[in-house]
């Protein structure tokens, strides 16, 4: 069997539709969860809340050293046994979000560490309440430092969204597999799926590199 352009073009709209509706949505929501939760983890560890800080560190180490796929299966197949049934997409966003939050926590921490000590001292001297110190002084500087690193993890997460196919989310890879199963042609669907990923991730990585250059220039 040879490559058929007409078949490749015919299936493209279907692939793109599922790519937009599931792959991209899961990436955006997963990144949002990871960015917020990662910041929460980092702050818990930074202000050293007793017990909670140690528990967070242990949790982060564990999640980072175990496969995403098994974490997703745990959420999808084991939680219903404990009386908690979640939709596949919800599990996907939650799984990706928590997994990457554990990576982002470290990124935030290095960003917070990089804020000069004088900034903290100035906040104390100005009698700023802790909340204002974090919101108006520390975090704006910390987040700008780590924006490129966070972007990298967002791209890494994007490339791991096909894992969601295995918990029945009808994203790009799942759709390609379905088309292959229906037509007994796997070559075009999988090739097109890979190319769609390349077409989306490569320009984003280039943009990010430029953003990093710009932020570094300040």
């Amino acid at each position: 069997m040879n490559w058929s352009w007409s078949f490749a073009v015919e299936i493209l709209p279907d692939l793109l539709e599922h790519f937009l509706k599931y792959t991209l949505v899961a990436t955006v929501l997963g990144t949002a969860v990871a960015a917020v939760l990662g910041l929460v983890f980092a702050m818990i560890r930074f202000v050293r809340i007793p017990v909670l800080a140690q528990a967070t560190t242990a949790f982060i180490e564990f999640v980072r050293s175990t496969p995403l796929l098994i974490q997703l299966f745990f959420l999808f197949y084991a939680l219903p046994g404990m009386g908690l049934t979640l939709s596949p997409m919800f599990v996907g966003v939650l799984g990706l979000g928590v997994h990457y939050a554990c990576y982002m926590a470290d990124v935030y921490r290095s960003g917070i560490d990089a804020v000069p000590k004088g900034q903290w001292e100035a906040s104390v001297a100005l009698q700023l309440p802790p909340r204002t110190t974090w919101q108006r002084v520390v975090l704006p500087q910390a987040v700008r430092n780590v924006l490129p690193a966070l972007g990298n993890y967002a791209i890494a997460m994007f490339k791991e969204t096909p894992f969601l196919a295995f918990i029945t989310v009808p994203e790009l890879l799942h759709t390609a597999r379905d088309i292959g199963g229906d037509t007994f042609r796997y070559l075009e669907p999988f090739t097109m799926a890979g190319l769609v990923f390349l077409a989306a991730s490569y320009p984003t990585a280039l943009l990010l590199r430029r953003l990093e250059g710009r932020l570094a220039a300040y």
Partner: protein
Amino acid sequence: MDGPPGLIDWIPNLLRGLGNTMLVTVLATILMVVLAVILGLMARSRRMPVRGVARVVIEFFRGTSLPIQLLWFYFALPMVGFQLNAIFAGVLAFGLNYGAYGAEVVRGAINAVPRPQWEAATALNLSSWQRMTRVVWPQAIPLMIPAMNNLFIQLFKSTPLLFAITIIDVMQMGEAFRFAGGNSTAMYLLLMVVYFVIAYAVTFLMNLAEAAAKKRLGQHEGVRSMFRTRKPVPQEVTP
């Protein structure tokens, strides 16, 4: 079979699955390191075509998601007449994908060896082969070990994907346990613990390797460094 299987009864099955998981992990890691060195050196070649080929290969395998590559090698390649054995398809997909990431690590580490070291090697009239093997590489290797370790762990953590290409790996065995009516919560937790323990063992070994490589350079590290945990760095942006 009477009743759902217990976790203990399933251990021999899991060990059998783990054998396949480790087989693919070890072979893919070897392929990954070889490719990383070749592509990494090519990517800093002075010849444009050589550099161009390396860049295209690196960006292609980094840009097209790993699960898609894996299924492509196993399901799509037979359509053009290459039927790959499942283990081989797994080794190829993991090796190529992480080899592309590893190439950037190798390139970055070699570039990080200070310029005067290169110049001194030239001044001492060393051949370019001697310069690389006696001066540059011994200093580049300790620099690349932490980032390489991250990639080794990431590769290992991706291996549950093998169940999708019909390999009887540890994940497949875990799934069989669930289908047989076993307690899936306990099984998934056990699988995570297995991965966690092996990932930590690998990190420990790589810390040893890093200390040994630094010792050759006269930099001694304390015993504490052995028990350092990983400091992940995002792999996307090139150094």
